[in-house]
């Protein structure tokens, strides 16, 4: 939990801040052209909470944790540490895989909520500096278009992304054969594989949530 969660806070905070500030800066000009600057908080909240926050957070975590887990378990495999667990009648799968996958499933949604919060804070900071928007107006406008199901579904789907990162990285680390070169390759494949599966499963989850909750809830 500590490795997956608290040690990823700075990374996800910076990610969130950058998303919020850049999204607000990029969108402002377009919205002004259509005379719709007032809906900037709505647009930011919907974009961040429903898609950009969960997917960006998961991809960033896939990079950090996929490489870390793949390399760590891969190194344990080639240095016989996994064999040592097995010979000592301990179940390597329980100690190494289940713990990491569970930590990812639990921490991905928590970190996503954190990233969303920081992103909206960044968006507000940009709005305040650009147009002096009052924070009460920003908050009220941002949340008027969000439904509870938006936050719930799109945050919880990152639990599934966490499962993907955990299971793919552990599997690739566990099945390493060879030496340090193969460990490096496993770490790289863990990041690439996890990221691709996150993007693919996101399409499927969004489609399913649209069917269940309607377009506005997707």
């Amino acid at each position: 939990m500590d490795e997956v969660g608290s040690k990823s806070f700075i990374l996800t905070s910076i990610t969130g801040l950058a998303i919020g500030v850049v999204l607000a800066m990029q969108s402002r000009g377009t919205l002004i052209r259509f005379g719709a600057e007032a809906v900037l908080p709505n647009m930011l909240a919907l974009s961040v909470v429903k898609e950009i926050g969960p997917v960006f957070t998961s991809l960033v975590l896939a990079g950090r944790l996929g490489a870390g887990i793949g390399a760590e378990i891969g190194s344990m495999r080639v240095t016989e540490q996994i064999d040592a667990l097995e010979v000592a009648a301990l179940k390597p799968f329980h100690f190494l895989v289940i713990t990491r996958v569970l930590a990812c499933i639990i921490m991905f949604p928590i970190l996503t909520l954190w990233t969303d919060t920081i992103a909206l804070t960044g968006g507000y900071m940009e709005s305040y500096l650009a147009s002096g928007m009052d924070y009460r107006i920003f908050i009220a406008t941002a949340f008027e278009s969000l439904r509870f199901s938006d936050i719930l579904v799109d945050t919880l789907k990152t639990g599934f992304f966490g499962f993907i990162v955990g299971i793919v990285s552990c599997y690739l680390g566990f099945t390493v054969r060879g030496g340090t070169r193969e460990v490096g390759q496993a770490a790289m494949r863990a990041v690439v594989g996890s990221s691709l599966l996150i993007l693919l499963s996101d399409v499927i989850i969004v489609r399913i949530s649209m069917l269940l909750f309607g377009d506005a809830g997707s």
Partner: protein
Amino acid sequence: MTEQSIIQLRDLKKAFGAIEVLKGINLDVPNNHCAVVMGGSGSGKSVLIKNIVGLLKPDSGSISVLGKRVDLIQGDELDQLRLSIGYLFQSGALFDSMTVSENLMFFLERHLNLSPKEANDKIMQTLEWVELPEKLNDYPADLSGGQKKRIALARAVIMEPKILLYDEPTTGLDPVSVRMVSDLIVRLQAERGITSVAITHDLLCAEIIADSVHFLQDGQFVASGSLEEISRFDHPAIATFFGNETSHAS
């Protein structure tokens, strides 16, 4: 299984794809006996020892350890048997993320119902036995090669196994460390009556620890006996092995 045999292998065969690594191995290791398996690189020594502890499954033949068929059992039954077997890995296989103390505690707290004081006392006794009590809070990365092997040996014996399997216990060590680790192996057999199988191509180590030596070549034992008998055996691979080793040592 013969009456005194603790480990018995019969016609053990193992292949990886088209490559036959073990081609019908027979071995009997009596109680309180140290059998040393020697042979060149790629002769199948590590595969042999991994079969004995069930890390690899043979394609055919039988493996009996303490009366249990390792090749047939699995799950909890295999885990129960493994509690009677210690294994010293070639690399030591200490857990990098744990201190020496945590490496030893990890096994103790999961298998023995000891109070924290009893567990700490046992760890200290074991570290004193390998003459490294001051390394209690060090990480494996801070240890020398010889120290790692001794800590790994401490971890292998802390559960008080009846059998110890050594995979190249002295590889990469200087002669002083080789003698130190080898002496510990001899003491284990003398003081605790441990039965063991050791894989090594270190002549000094074999000379110190071996009760019997078995020379593995191309997946088969081509000679068995004392180290002296083996060294005089008329076989080209053995002549090359001992000739190279002698010139290397000199």
